[in-house]
């Protein structure tokens, strides 16, 4: 029984670790999509910043420097996406897709040129990574049943980016509902001409949203390569950006809903990795691949309106054209 409890707690702990980049990316997605810009480039931004974080961390021996560089590069990609979809009024889906493919090619090409390790970065030393933070008395209190074990196994021992990710949810919710920027952001995604006629620049508001999204994606990338992992591996995002996108839609473009969806999807992944190779009664070999596909299936079902209706911002995907 105690063993099962521990197993459960470890799964929850893993859920948080797996969900962290999803949460950061989903919040990034909320910022850009609420502003009316479709953002399927979450994947590419995260991949690129994962590479840059690891590369810079290796070169400077500082995880923090790596993260700031990652944020910088994700902002640049966001601005490129903005140039295409806001200023030049191009197709936002195509622009996002281009950034994803670009990131795939660029990370490996530059990675090989820099480190000659087939696209990977060298293994990061302790100082070059974000380390777990053991909360005070975790070991001592761990003896207390239930609460103590939860404290030791689930709450303690996460790195700073996990906490930042949870903070990002509060930040996003606060920005959207309580601030002037949030009001304008929601307006520009619903009816840009209303904002324009109120004398606020549509382009400026959208660019700002993309910059914030870049910051969040940059942290997600840094988490993958310098906190969760210890170095960059080619294609290391492996569709996480798309899962975050799915989670954002599943959460109906709301911070709280997206958080819950990220945790659910993270939980599924944590469960799947625990079940790898496990024989289950009746089913036999656990269908891990199918469990991993559940986030996509659930999102399709939600989008089809079979459980509630996910309404995207009304002006999403439409470039704003003032002159006829």
């Amino acid at each position, binding site marked *: 029984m105690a063993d099962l409890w521990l197993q459960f707690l470890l799964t929850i702990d893993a859920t948080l670790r797996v969900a962290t980049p999803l949460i950061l990316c989903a919040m990034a997605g909320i910022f850009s999509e609420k502003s009316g810009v*479709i953002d*399927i480039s979450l994947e590419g931004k995260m991949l690129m910043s994962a590479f840059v974080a690891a590369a810079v961390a290796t070169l400077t021996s500082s995880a923090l420097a790596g993260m700031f560089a990652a944020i910088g590069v994700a902002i640049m990609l966001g601005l*490129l*996406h903005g*140039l*295409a*979809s806001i200023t*030049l*009024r*191009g*197709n*936002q*889906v*195509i*622009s*996002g*897709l*281009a*950034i*994803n*493919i*670009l*990131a*795939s*090619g*660029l990370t*490996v*090409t*530059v990675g*090989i*040129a820099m480190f*000659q390790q087939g*696209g990977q970065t060298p293994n990061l030393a302790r100082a070059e990574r974000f380390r777990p933070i053991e909360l005070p008395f975790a070991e001592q209190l761990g003896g207390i049943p239930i609460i103590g074990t939860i404290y030791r196994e689930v709450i303690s021992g996460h790195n700073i980016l996990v906490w930042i990710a949870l903070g990002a949810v509060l930040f996003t919710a606060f920005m959207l509902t309580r601030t002037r920027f949030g009001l304008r952001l929601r307006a520009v995604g619903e009816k840009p001409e209303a904002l324009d006629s109120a004398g606020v620049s549509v382009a400026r508001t959208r660019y700002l949203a993309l910059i914030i999204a870049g910051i969040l994606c940059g942290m997600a990338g840094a988490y993958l390569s310098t906190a969760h992992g210890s170095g960059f591996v080619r294609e290391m995002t492996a*569709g996480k950006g*798309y899962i975050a*996108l*799915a989670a954002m*839609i599943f959460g109906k473009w709301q911070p709280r809903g997206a958080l819950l969806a990220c945790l659910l999807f993270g939980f599924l992944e944590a469960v799947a990795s625990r079940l790898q190779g496990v024989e289950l009664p009746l089913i036999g*070999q656990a*269908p891990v*691949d*199918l469990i*991993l*596909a559940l986030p*996509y*299936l659930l*999102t*399709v079902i939600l*989008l*089809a*309106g079979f459980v509630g209706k996910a309404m*995207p911002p009304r002006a999403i995907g439409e470039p704003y054209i003032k*002159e006829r």
Partner: protein
Amino acid sequence: MSPPPPLPRWADVGLIPLINVFAALVVSGIVVAIIGENPFEAMMVMIKGAFVYKGSLGYTLYYATNFIFTGLAVAVAFHAMLFNIGGEGQAYLGGLGAGLTCLLLDSMLPAILLVPLAIMASAGFGAVWGAIPGYLQAKRGSHIVITTIMFNFLAASIMVWLLAGRLKAPGQMSPETRSFSENAELPFIHDIANALGMEMARSPLNLSFVVALLACVGVWVLIWRSRLGYAIRATGHSTKAAEYAGIPVSTIIIVTMAISGGLAGMMAINEILGVQHRTILGFTSGYGFTGIAVALMGRNHPVGIVLASLLFGALYQGGAELDFEFSTITREMVLLIQGLIILFSGGLAYMFNKPLAHLLGALLSQRDRTSHTEAGQNG
């Protein structure tokens, strides 16, 4: 700045794609230079690798075959204003359709029956995988871009599950089916050429290339010479007009997505029936996404798509050559170029459009003026 005069059609169709490719190559060249290699040297290696070396043209055309199918798939959907980025998953499922047919029937049917059946199965499976997002868009209002993305991942999951499970060949470690019998093979072009007495280097180029060209003709007829194509284009340009005309918009969306998915699914015949002779994991290798670049560059027209497919075929084949010649640049360079081409011809489409329109407008009006003054002098 005053709005530019509309770009002449020849410039839009001919000049702009060239400028886009050029811009992509320049940016990639800068990256190569930063890495410390000579971009012109790399370019030469790619050109030689794609066209000059023995058998290289065959490889280029073999890659192009994939891109023709996926490019046509994207283009057909584009005509109905649907953005199908699910080509990857549809092609993957196409491989399942072809594979299942061959596994079941390759000991029973002769090639003349089995191959067409397998081709139909690949198109059919792809069609279903395209039609479901189409249905969800038409009847449930789910955004097709998102659903097709999700369907790519769902296809990948299903294939991993099947190929590592039920369909895995007994006693085999790698996730793939057993090899099919010879009845399921599409002949290689070099074999056909040799049989006809012509000397030809070995390459994976096979009869699928001909099927791909036939598909081009088929798509052209469908879009510009058939009533269905008329309905597809009307729906794409204006849903309201289609509704007014009594065109069943929902049905058109579903049918278009089925055709699009079917074309993407047929990409599998090149890989599965033509080259691998078994269904393997990950054989689509991102070719479905390349189809988007191909359709964008080819302006959604079969002729343009063939040309763009040749370009991308050459890039892929030439890119593979980079691995041998350089230690620091690899075939991933091609992904970079591909990303840039998509960016320039899609996302940043209007970057070159406007200045070019201004430039051409100025040039043309100047020519007009000169010809007018000449006419005036003559008169």
